[in-house]
Protein backbone atom coordinates (compact mmCIF):
# COMPACT_ATOMS: atom_id res chain seq x y z
CA UNK A 1 0.00 0.00 0.00
CA UNK A 2 1.54 3.32 -0.99
CA UNK A 3 1.56 6.04 1.59
CA UNK A 4 -0.04 9.28 0.47
CA UNK A 5 0.91 12.83 1.35
CA UNK A 6 -2.52 13.22 2.98
CA UNK A 7 -1.85 10.30 5.30
CA UNK A 8 1.45 11.71 6.42
CA UNK A 9 -0.22 15.07 6.95
CA UNK A 10 -2.81 13.41 9.20
CA UNK A 11 -0.24 11.50 11.18
CA UNK A 12 1.79 14.60 11.86
CA UNK A 13 -1.25 16.72 12.66
CA UNK A 14 -2.42 14.26 15.28
CA UNK A 15 0.87 14.56 17.13
CA UNK A 16 0.96 18.36 17.31
CA UNK A 17 -1.22 20.90 19.02
CA UNK A 18 -4.32 22.25 17.31
CA UNK A 19 -2.85 25.49 16.06
CA UNK A 20 -0.25 23.67 13.98
CA UNK A 21 -0.40 24.10 10.22
CA UNK A 22 0.78 21.03 8.36
CA UNK A 23 1.20 20.70 4.64
CA UNK A 24 2.65 17.63 2.97
CA UNK A 25 3.37 17.09 -0.70
CA UNK A 26 4.90 14.08 -2.32
CA UNK A 27 4.98 11.57 -5.08
CA UNK A 28 4.61 8.38 -3.05
CA UNK A 29 8.38 8.05 -2.60
CA UNK A 30 9.69 11.45 -1.59
CA UNK A 31 7.65 13.70 0.63
CA UNK A 32 8.03 17.34 1.64
CA UNK A 33 6.38 18.54 4.80
CA UNK A 34 6.08 22.16 5.83
CA UNK A 35 4.96 22.58 9.41
CA UNK A 36 4.23 25.84 11.16
CA UNK A 37 3.63 25.43 14.85
CA UNK A 38 4.48 27.05 18.13
CA UNK A 39 5.24 23.55 19.41
CA UNK A 40 8.66 24.42 17.97
CA UNK A 41 9.27 27.48 20.11
CA UNK A 42 12.68 27.37 21.74
CA UNK A 43 13.66 24.22 19.86
CA UNK A 44 16.76 23.79 17.75
CA UNK A 45 16.27 22.53 14.19
CA UNK A 46 17.39 19.07 15.24
CA UNK A 47 14.94 19.00 18.14
CA UNK A 48 12.10 20.10 15.85
CA UNK A 49 12.82 17.41 13.30
CA UNK A 50 13.21 14.83 16.08
CA UNK A 51 9.73 15.80 17.28
CA UNK A 52 8.26 15.02 13.89
CA UNK A 53 10.24 11.80 13.50
CA UNK A 54 9.03 10.73 16.93
CA UNK A 55 5.41 11.40 15.98
CA UNK A 56 5.82 9.26 12.88
CA UNK A 57 7.67 6.56 14.82
CA UNK A 58 8.02 3.23 13.07
CA UNK A 59 6.58 4.57 9.86
CA UNK A 60 9.88 6.35 9.25
CA UNK A 61 11.69 3.05 9.16
CA UNK A 62 9.17 1.01 7.26
CA UNK A 63 6.90 2.98 5.02
CA UNK A 64 8.29 6.42 4.36
CA UNK A 65 11.29 6.38 2.06
CA UNK A 66 12.23 10.04 2.18
CA UNK A 67 10.73 12.93 4.06
CA UNK A 68 12.01 16.49 3.87
CA UNK A 69 11.01 18.74 6.73
CA UNK A 70 10.64 22.47 6.98
CA UNK A 71 9.77 23.44 10.55
CA UNK A 72 8.80 26.99 11.50
CA UNK A 73 7.21 28.75 14.44
CA UNK A 74 4.37 31.12 13.61
CA UNK A 75 6.74 34.05 14.09
CA UNK A 76 9.21 32.60 11.57
CA UNK A 77 6.62 31.75 8.93
Amino acid sequence: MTITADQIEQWIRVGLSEQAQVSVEGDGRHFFATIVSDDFLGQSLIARHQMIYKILGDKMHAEIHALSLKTLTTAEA
Partner: protein
Amino acid sequence: MSIQEQLKQVIDENEIVLFMKGTPDFPQCGFSGKTAQMLQSFEIPFASVDVLASEEVRQGIKEYSSWPTIPQLYVRGEFVGGCDIMSELYESGELAAIIKAEKTESS
Protein backbone atom coordinates in the same frame (compact mmCIF):
# COMPACT_ATOMS: atom_id res chain seq x y z
CA MET B 1 34.46 -3.28 19.10
CA SER B 2 30.75 -2.99 18.68
CA ILE B 3 29.45 -1.03 15.72
CA GLN B 4 28.41 1.81 18.05
CA GLU B 5 31.95 1.99 19.41
CA GLN B 6 33.39 1.95 15.90
CA LEU B 7 31.08 4.76 14.83
CA LYS B 8 32.00 6.78 17.91
CA GLN B 9 35.65 6.38 17.04
CA VAL B 10 35.13 7.59 13.47
CA ILE B 11 33.10 10.54 14.70
CA ASP B 12 35.64 11.46 17.38
CA GLU B 13 38.67 11.08 15.14
CA ASN B 14 37.41 13.18 12.25
CA GLU B 15 36.64 16.84 12.70
CA ILE B 16 34.06 16.78 9.94
CA VAL B 17 32.46 13.54 8.86
CA LEU B 18 29.50 13.01 6.56
CA PHE B 19 27.64 9.70 6.58
CA MET B 20 26.11 9.48 3.13
CA LYS B 21 24.92 7.16 0.40
CA GLY B 22 27.77 6.81 -2.04
CA THR B 23 30.83 9.05 -2.05
CA PRO B 24 31.19 12.82 -2.53
CA ASP B 25 32.34 12.21 -6.10
CA PHE B 26 29.72 9.55 -6.79
CA PRO B 27 26.70 10.17 -4.58
CA GLN B 28 23.96 7.56 -4.80
CA CYS B 29 21.14 9.78 -3.63
CA GLY B 30 20.08 13.36 -4.29
CA PHE B 31 20.04 14.38 -0.63
CA SER B 32 23.47 12.86 -0.01
CA GLY B 33 24.81 14.52 -3.14
CA LYS B 34 23.52 17.90 -2.02
CA THR B 35 25.16 17.68 1.39
CA ALA B 36 28.47 16.58 -0.11
CA GLN B 37 28.33 19.53 -2.49
CA MET B 38 27.70 21.97 0.34
CA LEU B 39 30.76 20.68 2.17
CA GLN B 40 32.87 20.71 -0.98
CA SER B 41 31.98 24.36 -1.49
CA PHE B 42 33.89 25.24 1.68
CA GLU B 43 37.06 23.75 0.20
CA ILE B 44 38.08 22.14 3.45
CA PRO B 45 38.97 18.49 3.89
CA PHE B 46 36.24 16.28 5.28
CA ALA B 47 35.75 12.59 5.86
CA SER B 48 32.86 10.71 4.40
CA VAL B 49 31.45 7.26 5.06
CA ASP B 50 29.46 5.42 2.42
CA VAL B 51 26.65 3.74 4.35
CA LEU B 52 25.76 1.66 1.33
CA ALA B 53 29.01 -0.24 1.78
CA SER B 54 27.80 -1.72 5.06
CA GLU B 55 24.30 -2.48 6.26
CA GLU B 56 25.68 -2.53 9.81
CA VAL B 57 26.95 1.03 9.45
CA ARG B 58 23.76 2.13 7.75
CA GLN B 59 21.58 0.90 10.61
CA GLY B 60 24.15 1.69 13.28
CA ILE B 61 24.45 5.37 12.48
CA LYS B 62 20.68 5.79 12.68
CA GLU B 63 20.73 4.28 16.16
CA TYR B 64 23.77 6.31 17.13
CA SER B 65 22.01 9.63 16.56
CA SER B 66 18.42 8.40 17.00
CA TRP B 67 17.89 9.94 13.59
CA PRO B 68 16.13 7.87 10.95
CA THR B 69 17.63 9.25 7.77
CA ILE B 70 20.87 9.54 5.81
CA PRO B 71 22.82 11.80 5.17
CA GLN B 72 24.13 12.81 8.61
CA LEU B 73 26.81 15.41 9.30
CA TYR B 74 28.97 15.37 12.42
CA VAL B 75 31.28 18.27 13.24
CA ARG B 76 33.72 17.91 16.13
CA GLY B 77 31.76 14.99 17.51
CA GLU B 78 28.37 16.64 17.35
CA PHE B 79 25.48 15.74 15.12
CA VAL B 80 24.64 18.82 13.05
CA GLY B 81 21.77 17.44 11.02
CA GLY B 82 20.69 15.98 7.72
CA CYS B 83 20.12 17.55 4.32
CA ASP B 84 17.20 19.83 5.31
CA ILE B 85 18.95 21.24 8.33
CA MET B 86 22.26 21.61 6.52
CA SER B 87 20.52 23.50 3.71
CA GLU B 88 18.92 25.94 6.13
CA LEU B 89 22.19 26.44 8.01
CA TYR B 90 24.05 26.83 4.71
CA GLU B 91 21.71 29.55 3.54
CA SER B 92 21.84 31.45 6.79
CA GLY B 93 25.65 31.27 6.86
CA GLU B 94 25.55 29.24 10.05
CA LEU B 95 26.98 26.12 8.43
CA ALA B 96 30.05 28.02 7.29
CA ALA B 97 30.44 29.36 10.82
CA ILE B 98 30.15 25.89 12.35
CA ILE B 99 32.63 24.36 9.90
CA LYS B 100 35.19 27.11 10.17
CA ALA B 101 34.92 27.70 13.90
CA GLU B 102 38.25 27.60 15.66
CA LYS B 103 38.63 24.78 18.10
CA THR B 104 38.38 26.45 21.47
CA GLU B 105 40.98 25.10 23.84
CA SER B 106 40.74 25.99 27.46
CA SER B 107 44.10 26.75 28.95
